[in-house]
């Protein structure tokens, strides 16, 4: 963490609310991204991040090492997302599709297909499986860091990651087979 970030954390730990708000502002997009990926629901993601930030402020004096502050926020957000997922069993709201930049010259139709396929496969995973994929692939954490954020042993994290990856692959392959079958029927 940069010096200015450390200073903000130290000020927040000392009870400086403005410093905490600055830290929260710089982390909010990332935390919301984590919750959005785990929950696949905009409103639920916002609630989860709000709960995580509230908890962070109430427990701010538990911070012992400013360098671990981000990891702590990630952990609070992941755990808040688990709880939000439990609270909101049932249908979820759709996420607004991201913009595709046609100027990049890539196969826009193919990219959308791929994205939708990953999206559909990811939706079939439970929040725990999504979380392990998010901390590993989106946050790009090491195994030890990912395990710390999830609050589980490294071995458990690795096995969950392996199972989640397998489950995602199976879901996408099933989606592929369904698409092929649909094409053959139409032909």
């Amino acid at each position, binding site marked *: 963490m940069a010096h200015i970030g450390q200073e903000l954390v130290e000020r927040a730990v000392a*009870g400086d*609310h403005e410093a*905490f708000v600055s830290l*929260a*502002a710089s982390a909010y*997009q*990332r935390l*919301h*991204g*984590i919750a*959005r990926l785990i929950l696949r629901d*905009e*409103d639920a*993601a*916002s609630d989860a*991040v*709000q709960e995580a*930030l*509230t*908890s962070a*402020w*109430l*427990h*701010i*004096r*538990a*911070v*012992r*090492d400013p*360098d*671990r502050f981000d*990891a*702590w926020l990630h*952990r*609070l957000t992941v*755990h808040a997302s688990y*709880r939000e997922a*439990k609270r909101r*069993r*049932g249908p979820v709201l759709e*996420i607004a599709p*991201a913009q595709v930049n046609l100027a990049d010259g890539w196969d826009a139709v193919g990219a959308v297909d*791929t994205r939708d396929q*990953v*999206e559909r496969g*990811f939706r079939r995973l*439970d929040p725990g499986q999504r979380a392990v*994929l*998010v901390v590993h692939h*989106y946050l790009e954490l090491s195994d030890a860091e990912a395990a*710390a954020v999830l*609050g*589980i*042993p490294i*071995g*458990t994290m690795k096995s*969950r990651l392996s*199972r989640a*990856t397998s489950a995602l692959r199976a879901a*996408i392959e099933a989606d592929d087979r369904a698409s092929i079958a649909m094409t053959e029927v139409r032909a």
Partner: protein
Amino acid sequence: MTAVSELDRRLVDWMNETASSPPPAGRFEQAVATTTGRRPRPRWLASVGSDWVEAAPGWRIEWGQRRLRWEVAVAVALLIAAFVGLALVAGPGNRAPTSAPLPAASALAPGTQFLANPYTDSNGIRDCLRGCADYTRIVFTVPSGWATREGLVGKHLGQADEVAFSAWTVDQVYDDPCHWRSSTLSLLDIERHTDGPTGALIPAPQDGGLANQRLRGPLPRALTQVTLGGQRALRVDLSVPNDLSACDDGEFRSWTEWDVADGANAHHAPGQLDTVYMVDVDRRPLVIDASHMPATSAADLAELDAIFASMFIERTGVPAPSAGSSLSGASPARRPGAPRS
């Protein structure tokens, strides 16, 4: 490029794209508003429930542990002072408790006792970071001869004729409780048996969960819908193998808890018989595990039945009926660990 790395690449691209969309307008301000005007907990209390991510270096851990010991010592001293102060203020004429909190380890006086939700702070605010089951206390009446130790309430604790019960906030269930280190995990049964729109419990065959846990007795294993402590619950009867020597660390672990790394439930003794109640407390699970040994006497089992019949699970704003009145909603006496069909 392998199929796995191709999948990883597609996944990373999709995640970055999805996560990069701006959050809904106004929600950050709303989140900040919930912290405005609230004071952080004092340092000695802040660690409790903080979910702090500890760093690895040894000296820091030692320093942290020393400080934590000081914090715990201060917290205990303050709690004792608070109890003494309350006792003095209340005076003998004003005392009207109908139940008493369980001590950490001791014999229990006959009468009404309670297990307080450990994830609720002194202001009655539930710490959902650790335990989301929305109950305040589990109130029950014990006869003479019962004791408590390490969260267990029981009789003849640690002996061949033990009978006991305990409450748990379960995260996931080990599919193989003997080889729990390498075991896959699945959701607690009740998590899959609640119908989303209606909230009704649907005890049906399923994958995973305690109903399919390995080495826990004959299959198929029935999930029965019951009422415990005024709440809906699913009940399942389980057993523990007689020889645990080949199990990981010699321990038999049923489940993990949200805040306990590496699994939690290691209370199982070889040959133990369990009846597990998965209680639906406002659609959040609370697990109450009633256990006994093959050598437990019928009289002690009858006492356990009576305790469970007296049990009331208090929720926020729904206190237990006063002592002496009937506990409406309590289940009829059911013998935990009764013979399985």
